[in-house]
């Protein structure tokens, strides 16, 4: 192998650091590999360190290896270099190159001369242009080199060399079948043998070479700091639901909020708008501590807010709920008693000891039937008006409609219908003003929100009480309906008739009985209500004789006012009518000319008539002749008659739960009769409050409570207590009836 050495000598004597370095090595080997030699570069460190790569091979005196005929020194200017003692160099090392056939290198001296000149020579590059200049500069300003050179700004460039491949012997493959395979194999064998013999062989000397690591350089880069922002959100189930399922509602609410933000009433819109977040779920705003600060600045805003809030529907709804809750607290014991729930007592209330005593008293004394007044439906609206009629809603048993009206001829106040809810006894849910006094009411069962109202002037109106402003569905006012009643409508009833021709549903019709002697069936036609007459109540004059003669009588209406009627509970085509004359007629819907039967007993107007809901053939009638009569359907004479006071009995109702219990109201008292226990006297008598006349009665369907309306506009709820009723009331009733019948007969026989 040919090696040529090029020695680059760095002069160490100067105090100044060397800023010139050697060029790259270019050497090749003959057989294998090419060592690429890059262009010569200067390795100048920033701190003017000498970062020149050290020579890879120390020139050995055993340079007998180098068979190179000449040694090249790359522009070693010995003379000038020796003068430049500025090169400090911490070392002087010959730098050897091995060049193969290179013509680039010009050298002047031999190794020996180089070795001698090691101390003084300075390698000179030819490529770096500034180097000679620098050198010349150094030459020129040799004396002042220290100061000026130090201050001078030098261009320092460091670039990367190409990769230097020191040894590259790619392996070759020779096929076994090739021609010179044997030679190769022999050589391989020789080599293997050589390797085996290598250990301990004198021919081979181990020598280690250290690759020098270059000085590491630290490079720092500074970047802008990254802003970190913490963001967190709480995910809740309802939040996800809101955003997924009901986006329309969110938009609505958003638009509402935005509208409010744009409200031009106050000028401070922007701040408010910024505060209102668009997302519906989060109404969070600044905390309470800021509220006070804001309160001052946005005092005007608060008013507009208040208005908007007050008008909003949700506020009303909230108020409704709130009011009911409050009242529920207040009335909780009463309502619980009504609904037959256990009453909760305040844990720490002072009233408790007294109540405990009371309870003990109760347990001692035998319980007697009594009514306990629970509460009263009353408000300013209704005060002073007389209650005439009450009706429960068919669908919602907590809803009660009460009709008020004054009947005095002198003062004809307009009537009022109030719909009360059990949950709020202090204010009606709906209050409907009517033109004239209300005489009858009924809720429809097919459409539970329809309420039919009959009035004193004969008109009938149907209201829809579902909405807050109950609207009038239909009305029969004088000009509209030719067939309207001309006299007070005393009773209204919605009844389901037989199946419609299609046989699918039952049609419900409104029936009314009025003082003009007509019983009408109403239906809805194009312009309103219209009716057809079911029956005209003709006067039956078999026993009476009119003084005025029949002539004048024919001028007057030949009809007698009907005061009440009731449809048979199961057979809805049969109904009973009570008339002014004291007669009770049984009629049929299909026959509008004749009565099926007539029951005579009363000699005063029959005020109320009612079928028993539990016993199919029995009905009660009460009249102004102070009596109550119990009838059986097929008998012309009443089974029983009751009379306890000497005032007209205004109203009578069967109890919906017990077949033997019914209640009657006359002007001074409420009387509950139980046929089971006593025939002669009512078991419970509740006198009316002073100055107040009780007018109407209604049993509660689900519980054992009784509602009594009086002439002061109050509806009192009484609870029946300790009413001991037998188990099978129906059977007992019939038994009783039959036994009474036998008594009657025996009495008659005895009397006769």
């Amino acid at each position: 192998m040919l090696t040529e050495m090029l020695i680059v000598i760095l002069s160490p004597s100067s105090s100044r650091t060397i800023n010139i370095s050697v060029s790259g090595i270019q050497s090749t080997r003959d057989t294998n590999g090419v060592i690429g030699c890059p262009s010569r570069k200067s390795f100048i460190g920033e701190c003017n360190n000498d970062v020149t790569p050290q020579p890879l091979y120390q020139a050995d005196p055993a340079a007998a290896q180098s068979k190179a005929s000449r040694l090249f020194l790359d522009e070693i200017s010995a003379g000038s270099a020796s003068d430049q003692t500025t090169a400090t160099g911490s070392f002087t090392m010959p730098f050897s190159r091995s060049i193969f056939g290179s013509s680039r290198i010009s050298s002047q001296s031999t190794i020996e001369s180089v070795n001698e000149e090691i101390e003084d020579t300075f390698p000179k590059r030819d490529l770096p242009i500034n180097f000679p200049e620098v050198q010349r500069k150094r030459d020129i300003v040799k004396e002042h080199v220290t100061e000026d050179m130090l201050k001078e700004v030098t261009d320092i460039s460091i670039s990367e060399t190409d990769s230097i491949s020191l040894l590259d012997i790619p392996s070759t493959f020779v096929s076994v079948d090739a021609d010179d395979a044997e030679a190769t194999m022999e050589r391989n064998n020789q080599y293997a043998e050589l390797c085996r013999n290598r250990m301990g062989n004198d021919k081979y000397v181990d020598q280690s070479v250290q690759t020098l690591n270059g000085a590491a350089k630290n490079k720092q880069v500074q970047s802008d700091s990254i802003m970190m922002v913490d963001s967190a959100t709480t995910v809740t189930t309802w939040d996800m639901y809101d955003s997924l399922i009901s986006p329309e509602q969110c938009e609505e609410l958003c638009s509402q909020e935005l509208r409010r933000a744009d409200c031009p009433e106050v000028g401070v819109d922007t701040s408010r708008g910024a505060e209102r977040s668009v997302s519906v779920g989060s109404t969070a705003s600044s905390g309470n501590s800021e509220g006070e600060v804001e309160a001052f600045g946005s005092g005007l805003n608060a008013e507009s807010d208040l208005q908007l809030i007050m008008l909003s529907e949700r506020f009303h709804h909230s108020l409704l709920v709130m009011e009911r809750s409050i009242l529920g607290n207040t009335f909780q014991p009463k309502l619980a008693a009504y609904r037959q729930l256990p009453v909760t007592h305040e844990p720490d209330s002072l009233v408790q000891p007294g109540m405990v005593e009371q309870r003990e008293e109760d347990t001692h004394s035998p319980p007697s039937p009594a009514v306990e007044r629970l509460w009263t439906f009353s408000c300013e609206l209704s005060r002073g008006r007389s209650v005439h009629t009450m009706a429960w809603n068919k669908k919602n048993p907590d809803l009660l409609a009460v009709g008020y009206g004054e009947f005095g001829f002198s003062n004809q106040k307009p009537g009022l219908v109030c719909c009360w809810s059990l949950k709020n006894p202090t204010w009606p849910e709906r209050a409907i003003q009517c033109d004239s006094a209300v005489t009858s009411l009924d809720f429809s069962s097919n459409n539970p929100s329809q309420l039919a109202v009959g009035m004193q002037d004969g008109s009938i109106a149907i209201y829809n009480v579902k909405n807050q402003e109950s609207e009038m569905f239909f009305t029969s006012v004088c000009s509209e309906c030719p067939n309207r009643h001309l006299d007070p409508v005393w009773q209204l009833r919605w009844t389901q008739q037989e199946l419609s021709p299609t046989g699918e549903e039952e049609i419900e019709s409104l029936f009314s009985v009025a003082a003009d002697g007509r019983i009408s069936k109403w239906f809805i036609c194009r312009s309103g209500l219209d009716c057809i007459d079911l029956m005209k109540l003709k006067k039956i004059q078999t026993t009476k004789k009119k003084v005025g003669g029949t002539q004048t009588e024919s001028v007057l209406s030949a009809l007698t006012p009907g005061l009440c009627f009731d449809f048979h509970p199961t057979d809805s085509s049969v109904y009973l009518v009570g008339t002014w004359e004291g007669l009770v007629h049984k009629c049929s819907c299909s026959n509008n000319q004749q009565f099926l039967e007539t029951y005579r007993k009363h000699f005063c107007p029959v005020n109320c008539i009612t079928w028993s809901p539990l016993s199919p053939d029995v009905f009660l009638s009460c009249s102004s002749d102070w009596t109550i009569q119990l009838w059986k359907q097929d008998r012309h004479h009443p089974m029983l008659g009751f009379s306890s006071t000497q005032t007209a009995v205004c109203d009578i109702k069967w109890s919906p739960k017990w077949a033997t219990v019914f209640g009657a109201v006359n002007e001074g008292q409420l009387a509950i009769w139980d046929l089971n226990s006593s025939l002669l006297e009512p078991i419970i008598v509740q006198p009316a409050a002073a100055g107040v006349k009780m007018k109407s009665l209604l049993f509660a369907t689900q519980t054992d409570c009784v509602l009594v309306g009086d002439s002061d506009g109050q509806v009192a709820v009484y609870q029946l207590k300790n009413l001991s009723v037998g188990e099978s009331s129906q059977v007992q009733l019939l038994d009783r009836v039959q036994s009474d019948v036998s008594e009657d007969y025996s009495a008659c026989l005895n009397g006769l």
Partner: protein
Amino acid sequence: MLTRIEAHKSVIGTIVVNADGIPIRTTLDNSTANQYAGLFRQLTLMARSTVRDIDPQNDLLVLRVRSKKHEILVAPENDFLLIVIQNECE
């Protein structure tokens, strides 16, 4: 309707709070109203979140806090808060 509630004999006070936590109508004094408003706002948000977490179609109607001395009813809505303080009845 609000006047009816306020006129009820067992009701000590009512507060209507708007969406920002400011009482806009109250029968109590301002500082108390502010205090109630701030405290109950958090509670109603939490209660409402609880109710809706269990069933997202449900919603909180009224929150009642019954204490020894009185009972506080809160009706939360999106836009406002209605607080009523009621005395022990009877």
